[in-house]
């Protein structure tokens, strides 16, 4: 069946609720109205209000209660309505969810999923377009995944729910309905920690994840037309990063362009860049380039196009990288 990311996520949650009594879906407006993006549409009708719970407007509470449930044996899947509204839950997520296993020497753990719609491009109000994945990646004890296509959205969500540790699932808002794919009757789980090489190439490694994959796919087409053989890597998981996928690609192509819409400084691509410089620098024939958002607040609707990396910016960076090569 042709499926969007939104539908794939819905199906993953539906299947997980059916497969495992311990799963409970909680968040603001996730029940009756099916979530502001309709990701949980119909789940309350099928699984009941005890398992698909509309909570008060209380992100810290949702995360902290989720923590308690997880420690006591449930598998909560909590939703932060938008990434900007996950910030009030930082104390719970960073200080407790991510740490209880270490603090209790494995006696307790918090196997829970924190669903976070993220990224810009929908002309929304302030706080609705954040791309703060670096903060989650920088939090020891959290796994972080960021699917960019329906099969991965399904498969990573199922794996995240089954994972023994807390997993942040970053859901690319502007791709929810923009990327379609045939989904099998029984879609496969996708292992956390494995990147996907979407397109093989010889001249350049284009590396990204989540929402920016759409522009990257367009860029690959244009670069291929230009005769630049581009390898496209969708990291899919940010923590733990599939370092081998990055390094073997860069060793082959000798060039890397890293794409993320997050602010540049100390963004996730700074980490990937550091990895390449530490472990593949002698394979490089050109400096690593990042195409990112700016170190500014994500702007309002009329300025979005000035902020988000465009296909043009990616293509230009790729061309310069190839031209600058030694």
């Amino acid at each position, binding site marked *: 069946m042709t499926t969007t990311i939104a539908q794939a996520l819905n199906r993953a949650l539906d299947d997980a609720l059916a497969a495992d009594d311990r799963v409970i879906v909680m968040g603001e*407006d996730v029940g009756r109205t099916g979530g502001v993006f309709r990701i949980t549409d119909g789940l309350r009708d099928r699984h009941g209000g005890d398992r698909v719970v509309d909570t008060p*407007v209380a992100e810290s509470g949702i995360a902290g209660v989720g923590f308690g449930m997880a420690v006591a044996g449930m598998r909560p899947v909590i939703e932060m309505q938008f990434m900007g509204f996950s*910030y009030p839950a930082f104390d719970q997520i960073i200080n407790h969810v991510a740490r209880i296993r270490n603090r209790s020497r494995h006696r307790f753990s918090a196997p829970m999923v924190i669903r976070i719609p993220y990224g810009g491009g929908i002309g929304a109000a302030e706080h609705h377009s954040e791309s703060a994945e670096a903060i989650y990646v920088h939090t020891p004890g959290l796994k972080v995944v960021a699917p960019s296509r329906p099969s991965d959205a399904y498969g990573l969500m199922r794996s995240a729910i089954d994972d023994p540790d807390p997993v942040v699932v970053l859901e690319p808002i502007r791709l929810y309905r923009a990327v379609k794919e045939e989904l099998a009757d029984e879609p496969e789980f996708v292992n956390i920690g494995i990147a996907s090489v979407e397109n093989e190439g010889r001249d350049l490694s284009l590396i990204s994840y989540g929402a920016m994959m759409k522009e990257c796919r367009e860029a690959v087409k244009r670069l291929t037309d230009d005769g630049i053989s581009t390898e496209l890597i969708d990291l899919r998981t940010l923590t733990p990063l599939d370092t081998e996928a990055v390094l073997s690609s860069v060793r082959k192509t000798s060039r890397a362009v890293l794409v993320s819409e997050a602010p540049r400084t100390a963004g996730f691509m700074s980490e990937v860049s550091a990895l390449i410089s530490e472990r593949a620098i002698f394979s490089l024939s050109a400096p690593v380039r990042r195409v990112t958002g700016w*170190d500014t607040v994500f702007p*309002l609707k*009329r300025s979005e196009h000035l902020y988000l990396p*465009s296909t043009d910016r990616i293509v230009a960076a790729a061309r310069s990288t190839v031209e600058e090569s030694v």
Partner: protein
Amino acid sequence: MRFTGALTSPRMRQILTPSGALVDEAPMDDALASRLYRAMVFARTYDRKSMALQKQGRLATYAPFEGQEAAQAGSAAALEVDDWMVGTYRDAAAMWMQAYPMELLFAGRTGHEHGGRVPEHVNVLPPSITVGGHMVHAVGLAWAERLQGSSRIALTYFGDGATSEGDFHEAMNMAAVQKVGTVFVCQNNGWAISLPTAEQTATETIAEKAIAYGMPGVRVDGNDVFAVYAATREAVGRARSGEGPTLIEAVTYRMGPHTTADDPGRYRSEADREEWVRRDPIERLRVYLSERGRWDEDWQMRIEEQASSEVERAIVLAESLRAPEPEEMFGAMFAEIPPHLAEQLAEAKAAP
């Protein structure tokens, strides 16, 4: 579908009934009542026009406040022009009354950063888009005024949903402990997106939460501009004279969707809404004024025309703002652009 019939609660203060009858002493003269009536007509015109513009794609997502005009106008009217106001995405009517220019309200909604450029001497913060994070700000503002020897106070608006956020507790507690001059105005409009108030809180009212913090809590008919005004005037008086904060619960109803991106048909029945049409905040004041010989069709037409032309003027201004350049994004991050941002700005300007 659950709904608390809060309107009939005996503890809810009402001065002007839905049919326009006075059941208590009017807290204002006819001149002020007429002024508030006119303000509410302006507010509704602004609100309905915004909904229409959003449908045409000229505004980004919009959060309508229809039904809440009295809760906003009645409370804002109790402030001095330089008192602080800290509200939400749904409080444009109150902000406008406290001198936040209508063109800037529109500008923000078109998605232009300039909408946040509050004029000098207007003590209104740009609307809080995060739920609940701003109430503590009103505590700090009022406290600072007191420390600096001023009698300025701060009023903050928030919804029933916001009372579930931890920051609500922290704001209420600190304000009460320090006897800060903050007026907390909860517009309990029955809903937080799809969640009815009865599932937001297990208390029967929002007002009673005040007791736990050691401050007065009052519950008023939020669609009764007299009751809202009277309660706020009292709270403002307490705040200004150093007696501390007050929580006001204005019981009202969100007549429209949560925002233009919302479909209320998924979670509430039209019947609830119909019930509230009868309790319209503007109509009851019209009846009152009419009975006192202060309202007629002519005047109605005149203020509607004035409202339309003011709204048009503001839209034209908002839409004629220069299209944002990259400077708009970079220029207000710090007092001065640091080197790394200057470099990125140059890159943004040269971007293909």
